[in-house]
């Protein structure tokens, strides 16, 4: 957790150079292996790129990507809102916490696949069950993170706020929120990494559209080039969210640190 909460100052010129070099090496290894095996089961990077462009032009990739992202967004926000509320409640109330602690441990340890199967069995192969399965998988992580965040709130600052009569709203926005914010961002970042993997499995098992479903189709056709093309597109989108939204939010939260 600590590396998420307190990331090292990065982005020096040399470190981005290393990142580029490492990516090029990966592509090179891929290209060389493709040449060595020379099989449709391991297509070369250029072939995958070609498929990617074709899929983009046909619109199939974008529509599937859109559907998956929609599911991801809905379940992400549901899990964050619910998890934050429960986490804060447990962090503030010792009795509630000791009662529900074992529930949390159980939920943290249920394999994602089990939740997904049970949701589909109990609620049917529909959108509700799909979203619910993702939310249940992510929820315990958010709860645990926010519970820790709530416990870590500095009581001496709350006393100060009480003396200087901050009132509820100022205390919440200037004293409590800044302390919870890093935990919220940490939960969001680990949550995103978790959720986008689970969403695909959910789609594979019980939906007839989205990235997961499409990957399943490609699997049955042994169409590895399309599988890789979809993977690249998905990784790209997730990285855009991570670097375009979550990282800047994280940096904003840490701006006052030395």
């Amino acid at each position, binding site marked *: 957790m600590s590396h998420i909460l307190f990331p090292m100052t990065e982005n020096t010129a040399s470190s981005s150079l290393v990142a580029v070099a490492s990516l090029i090496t990966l592509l090179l290894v891929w290209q060389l292996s493709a040449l060595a095996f020379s099989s449709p089961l391991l297509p070369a990077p250029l072939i995958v790129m070609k498929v990617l462009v074709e899929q983009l032009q046909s619109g199939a990739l974008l529509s599937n990507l859109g559907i998956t992202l929609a599911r991801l967004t809905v379940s992400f926000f549901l899990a964050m809102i619910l998890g934050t509320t429960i986490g804060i409640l447990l962090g503030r109330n010792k009795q509630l916490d000791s009662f529900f602690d074992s529930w949390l441990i159980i939920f943290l340890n249920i394999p994602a696949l089990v939740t997904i199967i049970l949701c589909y069995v109990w609620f049917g192969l529909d959108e509700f069950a799909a979203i619910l399965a993702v939310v249940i998988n992510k929820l315990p992580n958010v709860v645990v993170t926010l519970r820790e965040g709530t416990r870590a709130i500095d009581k*001496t600052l709350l*006393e100060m706020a*009480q*003396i*200087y*009569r901050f009132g509820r709203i100022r205390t919440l926005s200037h004293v409590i929120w800044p302390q919870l914010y890093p935990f919220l961002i940490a939960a969001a970042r680990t949550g995103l990494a978790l959720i986008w993997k689970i969403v695909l499995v959910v789609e594979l098992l019980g939906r007839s559209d989205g990235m997961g479903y499409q990957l399943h189709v490609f699997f049955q056709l042994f169409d590895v080039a399309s599988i890789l093309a979809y993977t690249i597109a998905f990784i790209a989108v997730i990285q855009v969210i991570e670097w375009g939204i979550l990282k800047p939010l994280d940096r904003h939260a840490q701006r006052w*640190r030395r």
Partner: protein
Amino acid sequence: MTEISVRIDQKIYPATGKAGEQFVIRNLEFSLTCGEFCCLVGPSGCGKTTLLHILAGLDNNYDGQITPTRQDSTEPSIGYVFQEPRLLPWRTVRENIEIALRPDQSTDYIDELLDAMNLTKAEHVYPERLSLGMSRRAALARAFAIQPDLLLMDEPFVSLDAPTARRVRELLVDIWHQQQPTVLFVTHDLREAIELADRLLFLSAAPSSLVTSITVDIPRDKRSDDNAIELFRQHLLSQFSEVKGLL
């Protein structure tokens, strides 16, 4: 203008772990008149901070009664300088002070205070980048800025270098003259206490109670005279043998 009468029959910290119940305060009674400057002196661990917490309303778990009353019978505003600065790390020095102001208070006074505290250059700096001494001065500025009815100060000048401490002491006395808050000031330093206070309250070791209350009759314009302070101190120590053991 705020008058305070304090009666604490007992204050106990409940047993935790291997430590048994702790009697911190027992039968402590005193009062502060409007605009009085009192220094609280007592051995370390005698419950001075606990007493300030109770006065500030942070700790209601005691037997006794505190009645702070303002002449217009509204709740008195309190400025509290804690032992640690307790600044919000995610707000700059200026923001930390502004945030404590009541809505009707103007921010103009802040500039004056920052200047007096030698913090003008640091007003937009986040507390983590300040030295402890600077953070302490920022916390003092916050307490002064709200122009409180009651000013509680818990060893506020520790870790300030001697010239700064002297300057801030003078500032405190100026502000006290102008605004007439009732001040309760905790210190270990008897000379500091004599220099500042109208009255010294000596507390015993825990469970603490009032040992004696001594009025400092040195005129205010003689307080900067080190000899006068020292003379008073010598006199006090020889006159009140019970005080000696508390220092």
